[in-house]
């Protein structure tokens, strides 16, 4: 019998709410198959299973909130037969669907003012409905239900508040535990820009590349020489990752941020990366991420240049040990061989964990990225 | 047996006898009432040790203070607390000397300066030191009338207390500050079930007090005359010289520590040997030998004591239970209330 447990989908995840089962008892499942959708506080995630077998029993029902590590379902191993009888499963679950969080004062006030609490979005701690929520609702018409971004059973969850809390927890932990150091380097993109323009001129709009893809690939290749930037700080020590699964910071339109992974970036072609990136952004915004994408980025790349800033000095996402940032690509004066030219430049920055690396290695890592971006055709 | 003459006039000599009888008869009845469920909690009987309270307390003046232990029925009675109030207290009635809030272990009486009734071994010692300190510091002065007599605080405690830090701290403070305390150690040889020899490296208790430069006396606690004489010597020392005095009364309790115990800790033979020296019959024998007491007089005394006990039981039985609505009284002094 295999226990299929709720995996941790990030350092800041302690629990999740099962939204939907994609399999039924009796179904055969393959390794890597997406079998369930789970709502972390940040987003809905497709959860994969890593053992093949036959679904025996679905233990957790949609809507239930369970701690990481809880058994979600049991599976029969290939060849295993159904055990004759089984005692009623003892499952540790936290029932949440039963009762909304409403402060006692808000509940009393809602009764007095005749406000239907079930229509309100809570703004208090743990998204509880507060006195102010009730009073506001009593003075204005009930708000139109905002479109639900994620999916099915999660309508009541105030995604923004939850996500803000989760980001806050992860970032606080990072700033508390990780001794950050910061470096930056201005990188000329004349060759890269020209190469990209030339490529895209020949491509239909559906297959065009973005500069971000070149940057991702350059970062991934650079980690081959600088493995101390790529991996996890765990159990008091650094564990380098065997491949570069780059977390791509993606801002959500409704606020908040996710940084799911594109796997094996160094081994992929630019076209593959572009297609992965397009797909990832689409799924982030549709709320259909896979558990492995959420849980295992080995190094995060953030590109705030879109917002027009020159440089970004980021906060490392634990247990990762570094974060590479790119600012806006701008045309600026640049001197080469004593002559001033106007060429596109970008400021690449590095926030890295001093427990793992020093500024000297960090500087060399940025220089490597610099060098790689000078030869876009080799990327 | 000590056959020396009892050096008192007949009324006083009989007073001592009568008080020992009152304690004995009261406690015998108390034991029976305990069995009947009328008295509950802990009940520590003084039977066998009566000579100590009677002899010592008759040496004190009415304005002296007394601090006693949880084996204090006899001390309260001899001090002047009525048997009715004591019995009612043991019954838990509001007519009790502590309104039923204290029980057997916590008899108190402001009128006779009887400060309990302290049931933490050694706990009364610092209290006695403080009462004596107040007398020494009292702004009204420490002289009374023409005699300029010092008030004394008599503090009773058992041999078990000498193992407590409170004993040593109190002995030191009283000696250091030369306070008028009479330390009355009732050495009945057993702290509950632990004999002195099994708990103390130094079993000479006077030596412990002497280590603090406190004057001491060791006396036969089964002999009411010896007790009285020793206490008068101690009191005189305290009043005249100002510092504390320590008396070890060597005595023995005939019954269990509290109502019942299996007495695994002492030989029946030892108990029997001490009973042969029982304070009541040895003292009455001496009085008879001296021609101060006839058997009829003894029986009359005993009958009077028994009648008082019977009356006190009736009084306690008839007493009232304090209403539960008054549960919270006497936690703090009511606003506008006064203190002693």
């Amino acid at each position, binding site marked *: 019998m295999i226990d299929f447990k709720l995996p941790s989908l990030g350092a800041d995840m302690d629990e999740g709410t099962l939204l939907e089962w994609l399999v039924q008892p009796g179904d055969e499942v393959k390794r890597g198959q997406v079998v369930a959708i789970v709502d972390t506080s940040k987003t809905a995630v497709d959860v994969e299973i890593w053992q093949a077998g036959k679904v025996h029993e679905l233990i957790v029902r949609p809507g239930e909130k369970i701690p990481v590590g809880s058994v979600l379902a049991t599976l029969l191993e290939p060849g295993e037969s159904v055990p004759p009888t089984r005692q009623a499963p003892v499952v540790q679950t936290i029932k949440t669907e039963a009762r909304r969080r409403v402060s006692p004062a808000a509940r009393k006030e809602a009764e007095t003012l005749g406000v239907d609490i079930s229509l309100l979005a809570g703004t208090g701690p743990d998204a*509880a409905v507060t006195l102010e929520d009730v009073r506001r609702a009593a003075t204005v018409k009930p708000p139109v239900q905002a479109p639900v971004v994620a999916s099915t059973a999660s309508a009541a969850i105030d995604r923004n508040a939850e996500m803000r809390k989760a980001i806050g927890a992860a970032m606080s932990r990072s700033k508390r535990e990780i001794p950050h150091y910061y470096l930056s380097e201005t990188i000329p993109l004349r060759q890269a820009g020209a190469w990209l323009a030339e490529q895209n001129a020949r491509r239909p709009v559906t297959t065009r590349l973005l500069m971000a893809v070149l940057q991702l690939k350059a970062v991934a290749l650079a980690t081959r020489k600088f493995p101390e930037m790529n991996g996890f700080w765990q159990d008091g020590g650094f564990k380098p990752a065997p491949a570069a699964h780059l977390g791509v910071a993606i801002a959500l339109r409704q606020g908040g941020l996710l940084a799911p992974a594109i796997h094996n970036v160094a081994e992929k072609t630019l076209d593959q990366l572009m297609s992965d990136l397009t797909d990832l952004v689409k799924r982030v915004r549709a709320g259909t991420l896979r558990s492995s994408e959420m849980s295992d980025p080995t190094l995060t790349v953030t590109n705030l240049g879109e917002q027009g800033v020159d440089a970004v000095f980021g906060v490392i996402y634990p247990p990762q040990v570094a974060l590479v940032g790119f600012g806006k690509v701008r045309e600026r004066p640049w001197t080469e061989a004593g002559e001033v030219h106007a060429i596109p430049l970008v400021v690449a920055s590095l926030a890295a964990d001093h427990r793992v690396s020093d500024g000297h290695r960090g500087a060399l890592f940025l220089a490597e990225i610099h060098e790689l971006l000078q030869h876009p055709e080799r990327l | 047996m000590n056959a020396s003459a009892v050096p008192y006039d007949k009324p006083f000599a009989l007073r001592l006898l009568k008080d020992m009888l009152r304690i004995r008869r009261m406690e015998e009845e108390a034991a029976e009432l305990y069995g009947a469920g009328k008295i509950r909690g802990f009940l520590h009987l003084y039977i066998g040790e009566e000579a100590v309270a009677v002899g010592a307390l008759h040496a004190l003046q009415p304005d002296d203070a007394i601090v006693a232990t949880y084996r204090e029925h006899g001390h309260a009675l001899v001090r002047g607390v009525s048997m009715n109030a004591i019995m009612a207290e043991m019954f838990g009635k509001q007519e009790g000397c502590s309104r039923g809030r204290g029980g057997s272990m916590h008899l108190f009486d402001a009128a006779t300066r009887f400060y309990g*009734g302290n049931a933490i071994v050694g706990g009364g010692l610092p209290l006695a030191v403080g009462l004596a300190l*107040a007398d020494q510091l009292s702004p009204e002065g420490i002289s009374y009338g023409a005699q300029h007599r010092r008030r004394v605080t008599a503090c009773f405690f058992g041999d078990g207390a000498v193992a407590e830090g*409170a004993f040593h701290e109190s002995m030191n403070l009283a000696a250091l500050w030369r306070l008028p305390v009479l330390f009355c150690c009732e050495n009945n040889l057993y702290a509950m079930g632990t004999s002195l020899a099994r708990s103390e490296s130094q079993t000479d208790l006077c030596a412990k007090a002497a280590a603090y430069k406190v004057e001491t006396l060791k006396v036969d606690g089964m002999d009411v005359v010896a007790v009285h004489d020793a206490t008068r010597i101690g009191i005189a020392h305290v009043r005249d010289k100002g510092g504390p005095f320590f008396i070890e009364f060597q005595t023995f309790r005939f019954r269990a520590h509290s109502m019942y115990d299996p007495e695994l800790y002492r030989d029946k033979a030892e108990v029997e040997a001490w009973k042969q020296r029982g304070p009541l019959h040895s003292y009455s024998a001496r009085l008879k030998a001296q021609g101060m007491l006839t058997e009829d007089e003894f029986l009359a005394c005993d009958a009077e004591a028994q009648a008082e006990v019977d009356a006190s039981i009736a009084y306690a039985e008839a007493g009232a239970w304090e209403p539960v609505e008054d549960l919270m009284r006497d936690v*703090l*002094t009511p606003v506008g209330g006064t203190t002693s």
Partner: protein
Amino acid sequence: MKTSYREALRAALREALQDDPRVFLMGEDVGRYGGSYAVSKGFLEEFGPERIRDAPLSELGFVGAGIGAALGGMRPIVEVMTVNFSLLALDQIVNTASALRHMSGGQFSVPLVIRMASGAGRQLAAQHSHSLECWYAHIPGIKVLAPATVEDARGMLAPALADPDPVIIFEHAQLYNLEGESNHVAPVDISAARVRRTGSDVSLITYGGSLPKALQAAELLAGMGIDAEVVDLRVLRPLDSQSIVASVRKTHRAVVVDEGWRSGSLAAEVMARIVEQAFFDLDAPPARVCSEEVPMPYARHLEEAALPQAAKIVAAARAVMGK
């Protein structure tokens, strides 16, 4: 008039000694040494060794003697150097002083004042940093005061001495150098909590050495648009539930700040009363900022981490505000 907490205590003690011949001060090093916190410096010369009484290191003995002297008609002020040492006298305080009135059926009161320093913050490590106010506040039959301002340091002693029952005064060691205004000559009340800062969003309820931290936190919160009310309990037994509940009814949110360890703390008691008496007024679960549950470490950064701090109070207040 601007003065320090220490000077205010001194002035109150001197006044008490001058006004009532029954008052005397007793404790370790109160006389020749001048008091371990210099509160009674110079008193030995002024009032003599009878009334400024150096005691041997016998906390059980001299606290008990204080009880006896109070019974004997005096008005002793017993100084126990720190709350840590008071544990040696706990028997006399709990088994005798607090119980005597009740177990004597109301015959004897104990008009005793015990002063002691408490609290951490000076790198004194695990045996000299306790905040055990709640142990004493647990005991019926005594009153427990925690002056946290110069005014209370000056004004609480007289009513404590006038009280017929035992009163324990906790002086947080971090407060002795606190400067503040003390204009009054009249005694303050020792029955009610006091609002030290009015606010409408959240009640920060605290006492003693945590009051300055709570006030500091309130200032920081103001900068974030959160209007915090700060309630100084002042009297830890009997607790002034009415003031606590009144504040929470107004703000609907409570953060209790207590230097004691969280488990079984005074903060727990305050929180329980809030939940019992103001449940339907609460707009968020009440929160606590207490000391971490570790014997106080010596190293400064660890000690700071173990204690309530303004930043922790701010974080707790923001959390109950849902921010």
